[in-house]
């Protein structure tokens, strides 16, 4: 596609329809330069971001001392933000993909916002872990010295895969819209960077049947593969906690629990975003009660599922009543400050929204957007607090209570942490604001396609179609039910892993001498010490036998010498003597006092042989390299996903080549 071929000979496919033209014009208005209010909004976001950057620079200069994190409570607000934003990211891609796969017609004006949330939430969430790092300067160690044994590496792999996937997903669905915008900006006067951008990104898409086929293939492949990828991401995030042995974290349902929580908070965030865009950009005709009713019902169902998981998790722990779990629950739900926070969260952020959400389910015509938004905001505050309550109280509850050493544990986040957190939210909002200024936040072509195929009413938009849709509507599934069914199905899938060597006496030439050897008495091996004085055996001398060990001498026993000047003790055949079974035996005179400290050493055979360890670094989870099974599993999963990505890219190349 060359920049000089500005206008196609004749508008084809999408561009030909008046509806597409009208929608493009409507959405172009949303993309106009921001007005005064818009500039103030962007300016304030930039101010918050600048403050956060300063806070981060301060943290880099002082070290993590600048945060409230200390001994025991070594993770805090940053990790909470990480889990929260990764959770929000599920709004998008997962919901959009599930809606596409289940062919929920009302999705058409929802998917774009949903997919954008995913990309921006990931762009904000992933760096939160980096901000939490003590040594950001050594980040490359993850590549150079990365260990696949660590769930953190699984996280790196899955988050990167998810980010690439969700950007691709967002992009593929934007291509026909880029084509429309390109045509539109060609007709109008807004030539310039916008035209160049849309032209380049549209890959020369002209909605020819061939291109349409490639696009549909790419969309379908992406929708299917992104679902397991999204599920894996939040599962792996939960495993950062789940793989430890800590109370409140070491839970088998943590994977699905986090995934449900993620879809829950993500859906709530999606609704808020849609309400805001609808209001700010006057998209009432495209984002209608149809979408809000469906998403509200979905959110209600998710509330129930999330409460079910929460009950399931904590009831089991409480009922079993292990000592350390009881201590945790005392911190988490007891009368302390965390307990207050917990009950406020559960009641205020889950039960109250449930009541607000259940009203339109019972009375289908009583849909109130303000009620819905209040419920969604409460849910999102609740989900942030819930993640905070997952991270901090467990760290406050070590197996050995810190109080037993007189250490009082507290965690109070500092202004640095709060400023950076505010900055994260500001970046998220700014990305969204800028996105809406450059890209259409409702999918034009999908809306047009829906109106043509099944009519405006069924897809839940208020536009007039140009030609009446000739094609019959596909079988009517109640979309909300199908979607919830799809999610439950996906979740259920995801739960589914002597030489004798007498030495000279060391004493300064006393008349007594001692020697030690190995001998046999009554068929048993003995250690034989002989004490002589002036060449004659000394009777009645007290002799101690010891074996030399690294840090001291192990006493075997003592006895008096007989008339022949000897004493004997059974050889300690059960004592290990290195690979050759040798013991360095020391015989020392204890009395009479004038000979005390006269000693002799000998290295004697016959002790237990300690064979050298066959493989001191046998495969283990703690070993430097990962067990083969784990490597194969991770690599094959990644290979499958990236192969599908490659397939999608190939479709895009074909679209470009066929233009």
């Amino acid at each position: 596609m060359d920049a000089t071929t500005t206008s196609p000979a004749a508008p084809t496919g999408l561009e030909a329809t008046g509806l597409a033209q009208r929608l493009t014009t409507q959405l172009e208005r949303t993309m106009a330069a921001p007005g005064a209010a818009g500039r103030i909004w962007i300016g304030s976001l930039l101010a918050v971001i600048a403050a956060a950057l300063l806070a981060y620079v301060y943290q880099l200069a002082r070290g993590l001392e600048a945060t409230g994190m200390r001994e025991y409570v070594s993770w805090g607000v940053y990790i909470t933000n990480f889990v929260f934003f990764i959770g929000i990211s599920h709004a998008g891609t997962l919901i959009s993909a599930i809606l596409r796969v289940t062919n929920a017609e009302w999705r058409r004006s929802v998917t774009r916002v949903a997919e954008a949330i995913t990309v921006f939430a990931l762009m904000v969430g992933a760096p939160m872990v980096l901000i939490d790092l003590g040594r950001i300067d050594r980040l490359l160690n993850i590549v150079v010295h990365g260990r696949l044994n660590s769930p953190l590496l699984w996280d790196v792999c899955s988050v990167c895969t998810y980010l690439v996937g969700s950007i691709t997903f967002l992009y593929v669905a934007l291509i026909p819209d880029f084509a429309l915008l390109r045509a539109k900006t060609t007709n109008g006067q807004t030539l310039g960077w916008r035209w160049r951008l849309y032209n380049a990104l549209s890959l020369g898409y002209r909605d020819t049947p061939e291109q349409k086929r490639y696009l549909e293939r790419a969309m379908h492949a992406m929708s299917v593969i992104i679902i397991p990828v999204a599920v894996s991401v939040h599962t792996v995030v939960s495993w950062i906690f789940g793989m430890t042995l800590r109370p409140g974290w070491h839970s088998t349902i943590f994977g699905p629990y986090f995934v449900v929580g993620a879809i829950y908070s993500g859906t709530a965030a999606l609704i808020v975003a849609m309400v805001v865009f609808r209001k700010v950009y006057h998209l009432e005709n495209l984002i209608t009660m149809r979408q809000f009713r469906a998403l509200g019902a979905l959110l209600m169902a998710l509330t129930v599922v999330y409460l079910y998981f929460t009950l399931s998790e904590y009831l089991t722990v409480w009922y079993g009543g292990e000592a350390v779990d009881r201590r945790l629950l005392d911190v988490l739900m007891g009368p302390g400050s965390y307990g207050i926070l917990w009950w406020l969260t559960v009641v205020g952020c889950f039960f109250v929204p449930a009541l607000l959400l259940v009203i339109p389910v019972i009375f289908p015509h009583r849909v109130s957007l303000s009620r819905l938004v209040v419920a969604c905001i409460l849910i999102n505050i609740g989900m942030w607090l819930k993640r905070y309550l997952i991270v901090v109280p467990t760290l406050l509850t070590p197996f050995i209570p810190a109080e037993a050493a007189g250490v009082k544990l507290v965690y109070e986040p500092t202004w640095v942490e709060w400023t950076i957190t505010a900055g994260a939210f500001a970046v998220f909002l700014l990305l969204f604001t800028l996105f809406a200024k450059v890209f259409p936040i409702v999918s034009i072509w999908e809306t047009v396609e829906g109106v043509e195929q099944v009519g405006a009413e069924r897809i839940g938009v208020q536009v007039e179609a140009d030609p009446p849709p000739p094609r019959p509507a596909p079988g009517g599934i109640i979309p909300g039910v199908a979607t919830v069914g799809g999610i439950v199905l996906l979740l259920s899938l995801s739960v589914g892993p002597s030489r004798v060597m007498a030495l000279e006496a060391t004493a300064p030439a006393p008349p007594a001498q001692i020697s030690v050897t190995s001998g046999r008495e009554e068929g048993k091996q003995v250690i034989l010490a002989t004490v002589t004085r002036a060449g004659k055996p000394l009777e009645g001398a007290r002799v101690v036998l010891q074996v030399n060990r690294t840090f001291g001498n192990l006493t075997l026993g003592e006895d008096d010498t007989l008339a022949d000047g000897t004493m004997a003790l059974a050889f300690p055949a059960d004592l290990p003597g290195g690979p050759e079974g040798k013991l360095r035996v020391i015989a020392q005179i204890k009395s009479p006092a004038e000979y005390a400290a006269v000693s002799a050493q000998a290295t004697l055979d016959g002790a237990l042989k300690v064979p050298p360890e066959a493989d001191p670094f046998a495969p283990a989870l703690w070993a430097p390299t990962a067990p083969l099974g784990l490597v194969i599993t991770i690599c094959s999963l990644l290979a499958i996903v990236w192969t599908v990505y490659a397939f999608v890219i190939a479709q895009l190349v074909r679209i470009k080549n066929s233009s």
Partner: protein
Amino acid sequence: MQIPRRSFLRKSLQALGLAATGTSTTKGASAVANPDVCGATPALTPDGRLIQVQGSTATPMLPGLPPGDPKVRSGIAGRKWVMVVDLSRCDGCRKCTESCQQMHQTPVEREWIRVFTMQDAKETAPYFFPKACFHCDNPPCTKVCPVGATFKRQDGIVLIDNERCIGCRFCIAACPYSSRYFNWGRPETPAKLTPAYSPETGFPRRVGTVEKCDFCPEMLSAGKLPHCASACAKGVIYFGDQLEDAVTNGRGETEQLSKMLRERAGYRFMEDLGTEPRAYYLPPRGRMYPAPKATAQH
């Protein structure tokens, strides 16, 4: 400037460490007279004066192997270091902690070996419980390290390479025994005291990295007991090589490990976690000192 006596002494001891690491490549410290001899030991202060330090408090700081040495990660073949703590002898005096802190130059609140006051149940007797890193044979901390900064050696020691650690603190979260500490701020290292870094001593410490009890590998290589063991006059802490079946305490008492554990019902703390600690405890039966007052129940 008035230097408080205590910190002055500490600085002098640091100077001793410098003398040992900087001037002597052989084991031990040629610059220091035998510290075991009672009386005074000459020591060099950071400002270059020669002072005398009471012999009993002066122990040379030995150098550890440099980070690049393969032996740092492989450890000593044919050794399996093991610690035995005799709870019946502990009176909670915290000499182990103090000695460890002094030798490792740790900040006051950081206790690589920490003495807890434990009580298993309301009706059972409280007891002092000195706890260092257990150097588990199935170490949960080492499993989760994303970059292999913490590693287990064949002599059983779990060490940290502070020049590789990225400071994610996953290991801290994963350790069920809260044995790991983090350098939140920039650690103070006197300007003149900059011996080459060694993972075997973890010194000089690095900001934004994790540290913990290291079983004093530099002492073990020199055939000496770790500082906590040698500092305990009560003989609570025994240390030795499991492959020699013998452990020795600070009083020079050497016992047969297997016999000791068998006859005195030795156990490992929270055996059911499956971490296989390299530290054993002897129950406080027939204790030699009065029981502590109860604090928290474990």
